[in-house]
């Protein structure tokens, strides 16, 4: 583990030189901007009328995001879905690119533990998740201020930010198994396909009432904050993250690397 510092340097240098964090941050920035735009449209009936369907949607968003409390609710849901997709892209890139770019073989017969190499990648993902969450949180807050939303208070901001951060943590945990899919699939297709499947299944699980037990539904339910989640949900999410990391480690330790 003494080598972790050096490995973190490698992972962070690769990520920031690739500009992937920049692109995903721009993606994250788009989410609060979109909501702010819809709120702006809803508050200007003449524009809303001209935009037809967009105007109707804007009115719906304006209804649910009329004050800071409702705005934070929307916001948290954005984190649960938006950060999930952006993080799946990020984790697919961090692990899958080693195979699509043919660089994985340079990580295999080296005098550092493979678990350290993987840990450096997971730490990068955690930092990436924090970056995306902060981009959404800060930009969303600024949008709210610019839109002069009513009903703001320090307690509300702290509580709302706390819920956003907790949702982001849960999303990060349920994204970890996609490192395994990127490794076993040796690229991007399998994790991205599995992400689509996970989202479909998550919606289905919510519809049939099993959302509290399905790992990829739980952050969404937390974001919606309709009912308090049972403690089992937290354990399911934690176990999903741990299982994802363990499966990734096992695969890197045991799978043949013929390419």
């Amino acid at each position, binding site marked *: 583990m003494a080598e972790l510092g*050096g490995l973190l340097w490698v992972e962070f240098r690769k990520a920031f030189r690739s500009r992937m964090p920049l692109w995903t941050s721009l993606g994250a920035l788009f989410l609060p901007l979109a909501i702010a735009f819809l709120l702006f449209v809803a508050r200007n009936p003449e524009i809303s009328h001209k935009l037809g369907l967009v105007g109707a949607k804007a009115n719906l968003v304006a209804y649910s995001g009329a004050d800071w409390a409702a705005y934070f609710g929307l916001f948290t849901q954005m984190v649960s879905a938006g950060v999930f997709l952006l993080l799946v892209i990020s984790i697919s890139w961090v692990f899958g690119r080693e195979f699509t770019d043919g660089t994985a073989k340079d990580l*295999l*017969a080296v*005098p*550092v533990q493979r678990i350290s190499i993987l840990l450096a990648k997971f730490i990068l993902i955690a930092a990436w998740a924090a970056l995306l969450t902060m981009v959404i949180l800060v930009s969303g807050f600024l949008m709210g201020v610019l839109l002069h939303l009513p009903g703001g208070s320090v307690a509300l901001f702290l509580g709302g930010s706390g819920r956003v951060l907790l949702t982001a943590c849960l999303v990060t945990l349920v994204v970890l198994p996609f490192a395994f899919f990127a490794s076993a699939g040796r690229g991007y297709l399998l994790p991205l396909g599995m992400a689509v499947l996970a989202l479909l299944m998550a919606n289905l699980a919510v519809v049939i009432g099993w959302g509290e037990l399905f790992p990829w539904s739980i952050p969404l339910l937390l974001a919606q904050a309709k009912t308090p989640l049972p403690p089992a949900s937290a354990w399911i999410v934690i176990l999903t993250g741990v299982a994802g990391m363990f499966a990734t480690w096992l695969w890197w330790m045991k799978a043949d690397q013929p390419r």
Partner: protein
Amino acid sequence: MKTVIETESLGKRYSEIQAVEGLSLRVSEGEIYAFLGLNGAGKTTTIRMLLGMIRPTSGSATVLGTRVRQGGVEPWASVGYMVEVPHAYGELTVRENLEAARRLHPGTPPEAVDKIIGQLGLAAYSSRRTSTLSHGNHQRLGLAKALLHDPALIILDEPANGLDPAGIVEIRELLSDLTANHGKTVFMSSHILAEVARLAHRVGIIHQGRLLRGMNTTELERERRKRLLVRCGEPEVARGILAAAGYEATILTDRSLELKSDPAIEHPEQINLLLVNAGVPPSGLVVEVEGLEEYFLRLVGAEAEKMGG
């Protein structure tokens, strides 16, 4: 001499395909061992098994005294390698790629990066992103990564691929220097026999996953067929004269005479004298050594025949 690589009945089977079978070889310290074979012969699979990237389905491999196992950290501090096409992180510069490789080998001093950049002639490209490098410079970078941490054993898969003739000579000299003057051991695969003949101390020929022959380069030289070619105005007459003297000769399509017997090959001057005295003076005599490619194809052809029937 200390054994650096040893395999015992090493084998790898992928469901229906036997990629490598019963491979036993030994590489000693300070030598260049060349692993020769056609594409798909099992060279890269063997190298990947030696590096713990592929788990053998039979047998074992020992590298620098450590039995190779997947996921282990030993003995990789003392092993440098380049497998198949060298790849690098395209968004990083040459220097950053080497810096990344250095950090994967804790204990390698920072100045090793500059040293290897100079040694491999990469100074002009050190600040360039590797996505803009030519294939030859990618190959140089791959070699630089393999040599960066001053390993005792260097495992190279087709190291001359993509290099221009000057680059090939340069790498050949570098590898020779590393073994002769720095006590390093080189295990390399290649399908270019001429390159191997100039560089290697010992050669292993692999075909369809099996080691056909292991020999030193003197033995390789001895095993290659030789023939004496004689050009003269009247080949039929010359053949009669030679036959009367006990030399069997064949007239080839270009009307030259071919003699394969050892006395003729070892003493072409006797053939010359014989023909001159008989009034059929040759216009040319040349001893031709079988090309390495021909030798190799003869060897694998004989093996295929043996297996077929």
